[in-house]
C-alpha cells in the first residue's frame, strides 16, 4: 500500500541492502563455485528444509497422480469421478479412502489431482503476474520522467482495490463470458496482482540505471532497449523472480478462496477450494461429515505452509540485519 515518504526511505534502504546483497551473492557465487551463500544458509536452516520437503512431497504427488489415483478417462482426468448422485456425503471406506462429498465425488481423487491443479494455477498465475508486472514496471522505470510517474499512479489505482474483492468481481463478470471458471479465476488474479511486482522492480531498476556500466553502454551508443534487456534487467530481475516464485502459495490460497465462494473451478473439478465449498451446505453436520473439511483443508494448508516456510527462511537469509543478530 502507499505510504510514500516512509516508503521512499524504506525503499531506498531496501534497494540499497538488496543491491548490496545481490553484489555479495554474485561475488560469492564467483568464489564458491556456483552455490550462492543464501542457498547454503537455507539448507542449514531446519525451517526452510521442512518447507522444501513439503513442496517436494507435493510435487511428487502431482507427478505420480495418474498412478496414485488412475483416472477412468485420461482425457478428463481433472473431472472427479462420482459414483451416483446421492446428496449425503459418505464416510471413508475401502473404495473411497477419504470418503465422498455430496453428489458422491471421491475426496481422495480430488485431493490427489487437486495437487496438479494447485501447481498449475500457482505456476501460471505467478509466471504471468511477474512477467507483466516486471515487464511494464522495468520499462516505465527505465524510461523514467512523466511515463514513470503516470504509471506509478495507475499502479496506485490498482492497489487501491481490495484484492480479493476485485478478483471476485472480475471473475464473477468473466465467468458467464468465457464459460470457464478456472481461466476466469486465473485472469482475475493476474489482473490485480501484477501491480505489486511493477512497484517492486522499480526500485531495483532505478538503482541499476545509475551504475557506471549503464553509463558506459550509453556512451558507446548502445540503443535504449538493448541496455534495458542486456544490461539492466539481468541485474535487477533476480530478486523479483525469487519473491514472485515464493508467492505461489498465496496465489493458490486466493484461488482456492474464489473456488470456495463459487466463482473459481467448476462443479466436480479436482480443486481443493471447490471440494471445501461442499462443506458450506453441511455446517450443522460437520461433526459427522468432518472428512469433507479435514482432507482437502490439510492439503491446502500444508501446500501454502510449505511455500511460506521457504519464503520466510529466504527473506531471513537475504536480510543482512538478521545475520548480524544471529552472528552476535
Amino acid at each position, binding site marked *: 500500500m502507499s*505510504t*510514500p*515518504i516512509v516508503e521512499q526511505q524504506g525503499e531506498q534502504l531496501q534497494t540499497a541492502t538488496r543491491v548490496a546483497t545481490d553484489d555479495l551473492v554474485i561475488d560469492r557465487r564467483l568464489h564458491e563455485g556456483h552455490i550462492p551463500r543464501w542457498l547454503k544458509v537455507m539448507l542449514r536452516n531446519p525451517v526452510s528444509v521442512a518447507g522444501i520437503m513439503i513442496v517436494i512431497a507435493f510435487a511428487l504427488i502431482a507427478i505420480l497422480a495418474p498412478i496414485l489415483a488412475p483416472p477412468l478417462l485420461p482425457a478428463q482426468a481433472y473431472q472427479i469421478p462420482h459414483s451416483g448422485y446421492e446428496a449425503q456425503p459418505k464416510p471413508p471406506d475401502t473404495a473411497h479412502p477419504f470418503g465422498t462429498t455430496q453428489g458422491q465425488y471421491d475426496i481422495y481423487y480430488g485431493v490427489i489431482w487437486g495437487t496438479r491443479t494447485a501447481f498449475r494455477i500457482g505456476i501460471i498465475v505467478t509466471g504471468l503476474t511477474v512477467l507483466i508486472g516486471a515487464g511494464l514496471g522495468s520499462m516505465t522505470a527505465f524510461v523514467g520522467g512523466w511515463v514513470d510517474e503516470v504509471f506509478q499512479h495507475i499502479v496506485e489505482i490498482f492497489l487501491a*482495490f481490495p484484492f480479493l474483492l476485485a478478483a*471476485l*468481481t472480475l471473475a464473477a463478470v468473466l465467468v458467464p463470458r468465457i464459460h470457464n471458471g478456472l481461466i476466469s479465476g486465473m485472469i482475475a488474479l493476474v489482473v490485480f496482482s501484477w501491480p505489486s511486482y511493477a512497484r517492486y522492480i522499480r526500485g531495483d531498476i532505478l538503482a541499476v540505471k545509475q551504475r557506471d556500466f549503464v553509463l558506459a553502454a550509453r556512451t558507446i551508443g548502445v540503443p535504449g532497449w538493448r541496455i534495458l534487456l542486456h544490461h539492466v534487467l539481468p541485474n535487477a530481475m533476480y530478486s523479483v523472480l525469487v519473491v514472485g516464485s515464493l508467492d505461489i502459495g498465496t496465489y493458490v490460497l486466493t484461488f482456492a478462496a474464489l473456488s470456495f465462494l463459487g466463482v473459481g473451478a467448476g462443479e466436480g473439478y479436482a480443486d481443493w477450494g471447490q471440494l471445501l465449498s461442499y462443506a458450506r451446505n453441511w455446517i450443522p*453436520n460437520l461433526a459427522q461429515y468432518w472428512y469433507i473439511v479435514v482432507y482437502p483443508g490439510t492439503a491446502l494448508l500444508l501446500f501454502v505452509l510449505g511455500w511460506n516456510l521457504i519464503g520466510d527462511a529466504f527473506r531471513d537469509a537475504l536480510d543482512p540485519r538478521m545475520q*548480524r543478530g544471529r552472528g552476535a
Partner: protein
Amino acid sequence: MTRYIIRRLLVLPIVLVGLSMMIFGMLQLLDPAERAALYVPGGVLRTQSALQDIIRTYGLNKPIYVQYINWLDRTLHGNLGWSVTAQQPVLSAILSFFPATLELALWSFVPIIFGGVFLGIQAAIHHDQWQDHLARVFSIVGYSFPTFVFGLLMLMIFYAALQWFPPGRLSNWATAIVFSPEFHRYTGMNTVDALLNGRFDIFADALRHIFLPALTLAYVQWALILRVMRSSMLDVISQDYIRTARSKGLPERHVLNRHARPNAMIPVATAGGLLLVGLLNGAVITETVFNYHGMGWFVGNAALHLDAISVLGATLFDGMLIVIANLVVDIMYAYLDPRIRLQ
C-alpha cells in the same frame, strides 16, 4: 508536511476517478440488456419496450465516455443501481450491512493489536530462544491457514460437535426482540444496541455469535502484527540508545517499556491502520463461512449470484475507504515519527 498533505489531497480525486473508471470498464463486459437490468427494481425486464425505455433513460446506447459521465453523475448522487441479491438499492444495502461489519471489526481489532504486540515483544526479547521459535511457528501457521479452512474447523468443533458458538448474528428469539418496536436500534451493532437498551441477555447472545468469526479473523491477523512488532522490536533493541539506557543501570523492564516499545510501535501503527481498513471492507470469507450478514457476506453472496452491480457498488465503497485510510495512515505516521515530519 502541510505541502505533503496538500499534494496527497490533490492526488486523491485522481485515484478515485481512476478507480471508478476501472469499475465502469468492468461493467462494460456485460451486454446492454444486462446492464439495463441493473437499474430495474427486481432486476427483471418484462417487455421489450421497458428495455428500450431503460436504455434511453440511462443513455446505454450513447458513446462510452458519455455513458461514463452519466454513470459518474448517478453514482455521485447515490444511485449505485439495484441489488438483485439484497432486493433493495445497492446504497441502502451497503448502509444496512455496514454496521455488522463494523461491529465484527471492532471486536476482532482490539485482541489482534494487543495479542500481536504482546507476542511480538515476547518473541523479540527472547530472540532465538524457544519463545521466539514458538511464536514463529504460531505466526507462520496462522499466516498460511486458509481463513475458510480455519473457520470451518472452528464451526466443526465449537458448533457442530459442542454446540457452544452458533453461526449467524443472533438466535431466533433474540432476532425477534431486536426487530420488535420496543427495541431501539441506535447503531445497528447488536452488542452496542443491546447494552444501550439494557438487554444483557441479548448482549450475551450477540457475543456468543460474534466470538468465532472474531477469533478466526484474529488468528489469521495475529501473525501479521506479531511479525511487524517482532522485527521492529529487534531493530530497536539493537540501537545505541538502548545500550546507553542499559549501561546507565536502568532496570530492564523500564528499558523495554519506556525506551524500546514506543519506538517499536510505529510500524505497528501503520500495519494496524491498514488492518482496520481491511476489516472494515468486510471479511468476505469469514462472514460467508459464519453466515454473518455484513458487507463481506453481502459482496460474496452477490458475486456468487453474478449480481455484478452489487459487487461493483461495494468495491467502489471499499476502494474509497482504502484510499482515504491510506492517506490518514500516512499523515498519522508522519506525526508519530518526528524524523519524517522534519523532512
